């Protein structure tokens, strides 16, 4: 689950990671009152959306008068913001953060992830802050410092020293002290909130020698939701595609893609491979849908409905390899959805595995019109025919 910047900064405040003072507005009328309570000019106006690349998309503005705050907020609230991560449609801005401006002396990057190859939470630090860190990593990997943390010891001061004393030039002693504290607190916040990613870009050293997290990005590990119930309340469903949201409510893995062939598959690997098969047949998948290994009739039915409700879909491929999910359960689920929704596009069904004969029989004896593919190669051919 992704958090908004203002939510991530609330967590930072609680974790004693300094951030600039700021306030959230959802209405342009709140601006004058908010500006009165914040030091400035200058102020910074920041659209609160999950997508990155806000700065270049016009979602971050530095302003010098209250009038300018108002007009900046006005150009963002309720409008579509297009960034390199949103696609051409953009996303609607529902909330805007107004913050005090800061006197930037230096910009660093500080982040934390779990390095899957060594099984350890790893802090990432760079003096090339304020830039696209992926580009920095690709072009000047020497500027990226990494420090893995043993889960047995937790974060220790030597971990921070290993990062900080590689800086060139070395900051003043008070700044080093502040960095030591920020790093230790970041580690604590990462662990106690079950984060899968924390990013501060830039971590600013102000001209006054203060260390401030000027931007904040946090992603929470969804599998920890059972013990992070308060954090889960921060989820913003407005940031999600409506069909993806419906899938989520039904415990289905659905991702909207750009094509026109709907696909329903059991298992993530097979679902990805089925998308690839659709593509190599000369078509484009409209979605990724993994109904999961243990789907029941209702989940199948809901999954099929989600595809049928997608107006872009011109044909549907159901590819099920029955394991725990039995083919007869699949067949009943498909029929249940077909009863509630009219199916106006060609349906291609490929079934194999547990209870396959029973599943095929249930479909054949129904009113449902569909094409049978005996294997994946034939399924691909039938898909190709639909799009030619």
């Amino acid at each position, binding site marked *: 689950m992704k958090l908004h910047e203002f939510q991530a900064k609330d967590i930072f405040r609680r974790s004693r990671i300094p951030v600039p003072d700021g306030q959230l507005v959802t209405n342009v009328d709140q601006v004058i009152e908010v500006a009165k309570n914040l030091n400035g000019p200058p102020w910074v106006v920041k659209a609160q959306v999950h997508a990155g690349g806000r700065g270049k998309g016009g979602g971050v503005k530095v302003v010098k008068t209250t009038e300018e705050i108002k007009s900046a907020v006005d150009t963002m609230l309720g409008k579509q913001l297009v960034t390199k*991560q949103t696609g051409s449609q953009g996303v609607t801005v529902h909330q805007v953060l107004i913050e005090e401006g800061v006197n930037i002396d230096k910009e660093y990057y500080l982040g934390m992830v*779990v390095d*899957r*190859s060594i*099984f*350890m*939470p790893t802090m990432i630090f760079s003096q090339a802050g304020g830039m696209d860190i*992926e580009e920095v*990593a*690709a072009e000047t990997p020497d500027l990226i410092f990494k420090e893995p943390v*043993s*889960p*047995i010891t937790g974060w220790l001061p030597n971990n921070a020293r290993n990062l900080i004393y590689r800086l060139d030039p070395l900051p003043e002693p008070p700044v080093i002290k502040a960095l030591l504290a920020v790093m230790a607190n970041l580690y604590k916040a990462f*662990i106690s909130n*079950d984060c*899968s990613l924390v990013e501060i870009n830039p971590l600013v050293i102000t001209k006054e020698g203060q260390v401030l997290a000027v931007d904040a990005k946090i992603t929470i*590990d969804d*599998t*920890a939701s*059972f*013990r992070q119930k308060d954090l889960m309340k921060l989820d913003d469903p407005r940031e999600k595609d409506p069909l993806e949201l419906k899938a989520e409510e039904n415990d289905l*893995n659905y*991702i909207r*893609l750009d094509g026109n062939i709907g696909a329903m*598959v*059991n*298992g*993530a*690997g*097979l*679902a*990805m*491979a*089925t*998308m*690839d*098969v*659709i*593509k*190599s047949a000369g078509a*484009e*998948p409209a979605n*990724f849908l*993994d109904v999961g*290994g*243990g789907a029941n009739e209702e989940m199948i039915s809901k999954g099929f409905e989600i595809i049928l409700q997608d107006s872009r879909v011109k044909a549907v491929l159901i590819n099920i*390899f*029955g*394991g*725990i999910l039995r083919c007869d359960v699949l067949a009943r689920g498909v029929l249940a959805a077909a009863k509630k929704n009219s199916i106006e596009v060609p349906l291609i069904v490929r079934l*194999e*595995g*547990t209870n396959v004969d029973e599943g095929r029989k249930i479909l054949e004896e129904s009113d449902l019109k569909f094409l049978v593919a005996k*294997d*994946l*190669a034939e*399924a*691909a051919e039938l898909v190709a025919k639909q799009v030619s």
Partner: protein
Amino acid sequence: MSILIDENSRVVVQGITGQEGSFHTRQMLDYKTIIAAGVTPGKGGQQMEGVPVFNTVQEAVDKEGANVSCIFVPPPFAADAIIESAAAGIGVIVCITEGIPVLDMVKAANFIKDKDLVLIGPNCPGIISPGKSKVGIMPAPIHKQGEIGVISRSGTLTYEVVYQLTGAGMGQSTCIGIGGDPIVGTSFIDILKKFKDDPQTEGVVLIGEIGGTAEEEAAEYIKAGFNKPVTAFIAGQTAPPGRRMGHAGAIISGGQGKAEDKIKALQDAGISVSLNLASLGKTVSEVMAKHRSV
């Protein structure tokens, strides 16, 4: 031979009285897997399908000689179950559970790191040595005893591959799903090392997917001197970056984990990569035929 498990493996099922645990215990018993014991805390002394149930794994090891564990424990308690098995001296731990918090797996993975044991999973279908033993949830009838070793990060995709292999007349020595999570106990390389020394295994099928760099590392290892022909397939050529494709570990992020990079690394290592799942069985046949004719 086969690797990791065979007809003498003595399995303890952790979470044996749960819905999934009991269902798959029956399926494994049908396959003649020796289920030596079950564990459900608080239900020690009971029986499940004639299998004695204990409160702890240690008891299952001490009293029934269990040496393989199969975990169906719910996600909040599954990392603890892995650590319990490891501490009790189990040699092969198979964790089926999906959805274990990453930071729990960080602890479990670091706990087992220097121990003489193998952890398969989590979030995996398990292991089957066809005709000998099945420790997991895969549909048994599609398998056939034979010469191909199969390693995969996926479940149903592995079933599809095995189905094609069996259909093309190629049986399997051992099939292993290493799991779809970001942190799994076993890498492709760990398994390749075992297949290398297994006389029953004549060739290997490696099924990867987007996310991480496990396939690239496997390619390096194979290039450096793996002695058997490998055919590979990578799922997710059409997956968009930044999205988790069902498996927690299947995500392209920070410019890492793309299918095209993995395919290129494998091809550069001289490995045949099937670009289309529909024809994978055929590709493996060709690779094996070519290898035999040399």
